[in-house]
């Protein structure tokens, strides 16, 4: 018997940002994210407190995806960041920290939210125009004809997450594998619209990272395969292996999820009739000279036995995630029904062989010409493997984004400080008409611009976790770190050798100053200069597309949150 309960009225919260609980949660979340940022970021152990598996990570989608957040304001923030991550895979922490920074800095201003939003949108457009202009001093173009910048980009991503537990040799090895895998996914013959392929990550946990490898084509784990025996595969007249790819379950259970019951007379076996149908399919496959049958789900043992007796290989339980790569590798149409088999749905392969890694055996599907490759990824522990997988997938995605827009941004906080000094310079020299158009006073504009720059600088400062001093220079607006415990020196140039991204060094006097010290950051005399970039000097690079999107998402989310006047919660 169900119990009736009176409906509770919805809960109204007005001006949520002024509530203590909200600001406490916000600063806690911001603290968690800031402490995780960068290659020296601290890890978080995520677990359920009851002996479940532990995830040690500093990666934004793993962190935010695991958190169960009760504050609606924070839920808006995390949803935006996760959405950004699903599209770009990179710069998640940047986006989240920047968004928290915007909210914290703009909230304390005594300016109406509407005006803040107008001004900040204008500031964002200034930033985006600058980033897109040729004169931008914080971006470099990526030359795909040489490896140097690509290596730097991939290496920056691999080293940004310490939970991968990689040493230098391992980083080098993986960098080359990731690049190799990416090159495999670029089609050789470009038609009207080229589509990049996919790199499938094959897990081999418990092994050394240097045992990882890349192979063109696809690997499917087949524990049942017998080693030592040569693979006898049936080939068609044109010496290719014909493939049938089933997405439907062939386990022989009557898959009828509809409602209602079926009445069956005693002595009639549904199972037997299902199996007969499957065996019919098997007969057709044999007749069509199919050499390999792949099934996403389970195949009935009798069907497998029948196929085997007729010289057809059968591999089942390929899994949903492999279906799309399988379709592309074999060029076959997944068959979704066992009732109709059209000869046009078959695909083909050049060759098949068996590969063994660690104690696992794989069937290696070798196509004629492919954009699909398999990255056999090894790491010693489960926790570190999970992080490494996320990082490698990010790197592949970033390379794909970079192919579309061959640009990269200087890493290590230099882009953020450079943008901040650009905005400080630009906002002091705007014509009065701009303020009129925006409907604000120049003071209001200056206040918001200052908050905007502080938020950007906060991101750069978040890279320091061990008491390093963060400096900026007035010429290029780059970011410099002074190691903690450095001796006292009269000149900054004795303490800093290179800026964080590696482009500038201390040979000329750049009048360094503390980033966000007691006095507000100095306003540059002119526009921050564009340094001459030598690719060999570059230490870190960031993905251009991901960072641009992150900047926009952070600001729009912050504006959305600042604009919230009520939260209405259904309490039922």
């Amino acid at each position: 018997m169900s119990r009736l309960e009176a409906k509770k009225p919805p809960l109204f919260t007005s001006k949520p940002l002024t509530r203590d609980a909200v600001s406490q949660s916000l600063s806690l979340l911001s603290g968690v994210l800031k402490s995780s940022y960068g290659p020296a970021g601290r890890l978080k152990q995520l677990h359920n407190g009851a002996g479940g598996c532990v995830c040690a990570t500093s990666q934004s989608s793993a962190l935010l995806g695991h958190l169960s957040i009760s504050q609606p304001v924070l839920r808006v923030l995390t949803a935006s960041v996760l959405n950004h991550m699903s599209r770009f895979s990179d710069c998640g922490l940047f986006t989240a920290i920047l968004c928290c920074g915007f909210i914290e800095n703009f909230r304390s201003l005594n300016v109406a939210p509407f005006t803040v939003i107008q001004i900040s949108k204008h500031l964002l457009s200034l930033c985006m125009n600058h980033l897109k202009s040729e004169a931008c001093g914080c971006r470099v173009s990526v030359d795909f004809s040489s490896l140097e910048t690509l290596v730097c980009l991939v290496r920056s991503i691999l080293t940004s997450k310490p939970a991968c537990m990689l040493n230098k040799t391992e980083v080098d090895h993986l960098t080359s594998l990731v690049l190799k895998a990416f090159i495999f996914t670029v089609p050789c013959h470009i038609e009207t619209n080229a589509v990049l392929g996919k790199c499938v990550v094959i897990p081999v946990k418990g092994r050394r990272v240097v045992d990882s490898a890349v192979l063109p084509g696809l690997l499917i784990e087949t524990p049942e395969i017998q080693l030592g025996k040569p693979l006898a595969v049936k080939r068609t007249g044109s010496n290719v292996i014909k493939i049938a790819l089933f997405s439907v379950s062939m386990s022989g259970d009557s898959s009828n999820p509809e409602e209602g019951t079926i009445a069956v007379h005693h002595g009639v076996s549904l199972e037997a009739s299902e199996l007969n149908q499957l065996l019919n399919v098997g007969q057709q496959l044999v007749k069509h000279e199919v050499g390999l049958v792949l099934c996403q789900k389970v195949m009935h043992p009798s069907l497998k036995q029948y196929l085997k007796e007729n010289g057809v290989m059968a591999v089942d339980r390929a899994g949903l995630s492999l279906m799309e790569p399988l379709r592309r590798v074999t060029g076959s149409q997944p068959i979704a029904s066992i009732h109709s088999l059209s000869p046009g749905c078959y695909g083909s392969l050049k060759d098949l062989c068996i590969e063994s890694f660690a104690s696992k055996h794989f069937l290696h599907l070798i196509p004629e010409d492919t954009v699909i490759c398999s990255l056999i990824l090894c790491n010693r522990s489960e926790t570190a493997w999970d992080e490494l997988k996320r990082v490698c997938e990010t790197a592949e995605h970033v390379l794909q984004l970079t192919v579309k827009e061959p640009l990269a941004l200087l890493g290590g906080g230099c882009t953020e400080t450079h943008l901040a000094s650009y905005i400080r310079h630009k906002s002091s020299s705007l014509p009065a008409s701009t303020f009129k158009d925006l409907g604000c006073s120049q003071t209001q504009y200056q206040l918001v611009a200052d908050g905007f720059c502080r938020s950007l600088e906060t991101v750069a400062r978040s890279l320091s976790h061990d008491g390093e001093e963060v400096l900026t220079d007035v010429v290029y607006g780059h970011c410099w770190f002074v190691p903690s415990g450095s001796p006292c020196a009269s000149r900054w140039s004795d303490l800093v050798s290179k800026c964080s991204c590696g482009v500038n060094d201390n040979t000329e006097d750049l009048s360094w100053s503390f980033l966000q010290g007691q006095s507000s950051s100095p306003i540059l005399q002119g526009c921050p200069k564009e340094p001459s970039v030598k690719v060999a000097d570059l230490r870190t690079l960031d993905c251009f597309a991901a960072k641009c999107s992150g900047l926009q998402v952070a600001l729009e989310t912050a504006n959305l949150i600042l604009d919230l006047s009520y939260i209405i919660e259904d309490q039922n």
Partner: protein
Amino acid sequence: MAFRDVNARRHIGLQQLSALASTGRTFLGPMKSHKFIVDEITNQSTLICSAVRLIESLDLTSAVGQLLNETIQAQNKEFKTGMSSLLFLVGAWSNAVVECLQQNVPVPAIVSVMSEGLNSCCERVQCLQIPIHDVKKELCSSRVRPKAFESKTGQVERHDLKNSWNLLCFQTDISATEEVIPINSCSHQGHDCNFNKFLVSPLAGFGSVASVVKAVGDKSSPALSGSGVTAASCIAQKLTHSRHFSTLGKSPFASQQGNFQGHLSGPAADLCGLGCLAVALSHGNQTSVKLLQSIAAYQQGRAECSGSSQVNIAEIVTCCVLGLPESYSCVSPGFVTLVSPEQATVIKHFADKPLRILLVDGDLTEEYRHLGFNRPPNVRTILERPTPQGGGAGDVWLSRMSDVLMSFEVNLVLVKGNVCKNFMERCIASRILVIGCVARSVLCAFGSATGAQAVTYLSQLSTVCVGNGAWAELWHTGDGRAVDLGELLPARISAGGITLLTAVLTAALPSKAQLLEDHFWTLLYRLHHALKDGKVFPGGGAVELLCLSHIQALAEQPERPGNAKELPSPWLAECKSIVLQALASGWKRYLCVLLCNTATASSELEAGAAVDHHLQKAAACGSPSAYILEEFRRGGVLRGGSEPFPGRVTDLKVCDNVEAKTEAWRRALDLVLLVLQTDAEIITGPRRNQILNSPVSNEFMFL
């Protein structure tokens, strides 16, 4: 979601790690002390003797405990050896890192210097590697060579073994239980005291101090460990006379005089190389050495055809037979398993008849369906008229299935899963031997030897699926002693040309069966990996000593002006030296505890002095690696000055696996560095209210 800052005081995570790791200290080295694990709720106890079993038995609900467990399991899965070293180094390095933190060394400096230092050591110690083909020369050149390994027939005589082994092994056969670890501990001090008195009193009588280690369920009370290690070395000798802890029956030297004789009728190849290698890798475990030599003999015979020199682990299974002395352990070709007396009668009926064999890779029950088969929920069967009494659906299945077996004249069915009891009875009645719960590798071996093809359902059966030429017999010991041990009897099933070998492990004490099995697999994996690596490390602390001397040299060496652009920073240089010292201290503690556990030194202080002495000698020699190799050739690296057992060291040289050792170091360091870099623990999921109401709620913050 709850959030806790683990860095609040002195890194809690590292403290937990070191507390957990300290429980396994006495497992270091060849002289391992056994431990009892007592469950406080059920009062059941388990006898364990390895780090992996220890970690399995502890209640590890904390995040750090989980990570430690994951690390140990990963090493165990891959190598089956090195887990004790791993556990010990985790503890030693966490302590060392905590000390670095107290000296304000920045975390990134600790991480990079330690990881580079370890890398550099792993490269440095490569010069100590001994190629397998040199092992014979290197190891068998001792003045007193164990005669057993010259035996060409493979008949290893106890007396001979004894000469070379007894001095080393005096300790291993004594269950020196010196630590009692209650699990599910509710951290009652009173209880612990009870355990102390109750279980450890025999030891206390000998003046030892047993340490009680609590299961680390709650983080507030880190495990405490007393002076258990120092006790280990001195108790052991006294305990040989203890009634409680020295069971005559299982001491191989005390009672049996009979020749050891395995079922070794196979090729009598010259096994000296592999034999010596097995001895060197065994670290004093002789029962397993014998078994390994038999396995090597069998597999080498086959390898000569195929050309591979590896020990094939996939073709080996074990079978524990309780109630026989350990000396009856042997290797039998084919599959040895325990069967019921009814099944044994069937086997007796078979006599020497060749059997038709069927392999089933699922369960043999009516309800069983292959994985992925979902029973339709909405099917109703309509009965038109009631069936006559007694003709239930189950009986129909039973008779149909046994008809299938009869019609194909199957005598022997090996089933991967479970077998329906009624069906088993019916088969026995029709003299068909059905054996359930058979491992996949066994099915595969019989498949390739007899031509049988595994089926999932009996309805799939066709003539090509049935194999020929298997046979079954009751298993006998080498001296023909009848094995009638009550309920279950060992039986041997085999086929012509089968590659499968069963290591039959006999144990007089049921509680030791697991230990014996673990020992056997450990040694088998060591040999497998040694052959795979193609080289071994000199054992007995040689490699660690070189690491220690290498790191100390690195720490003293001035900063290389390699990168001209980098600014020289005296503080960073100082940090580097502090961190390198910390890394070295891990190996130093390792060597000291090793010396204590093997009774070479009587205290850690003395051991420390001995290690320093060797370090100085190595440094004075100019080339530490040459010194260490020379010492190893002369019989052992860290020989104590007093030489308590003259002659012993010249008989034995110990070797270690290369990859297993360096991987254990790396895994240990990775774990410590992972925990070091963690600053917060985030508890997800529905435990929020539980934490809110718990006494530690003020440590948490909520989102």
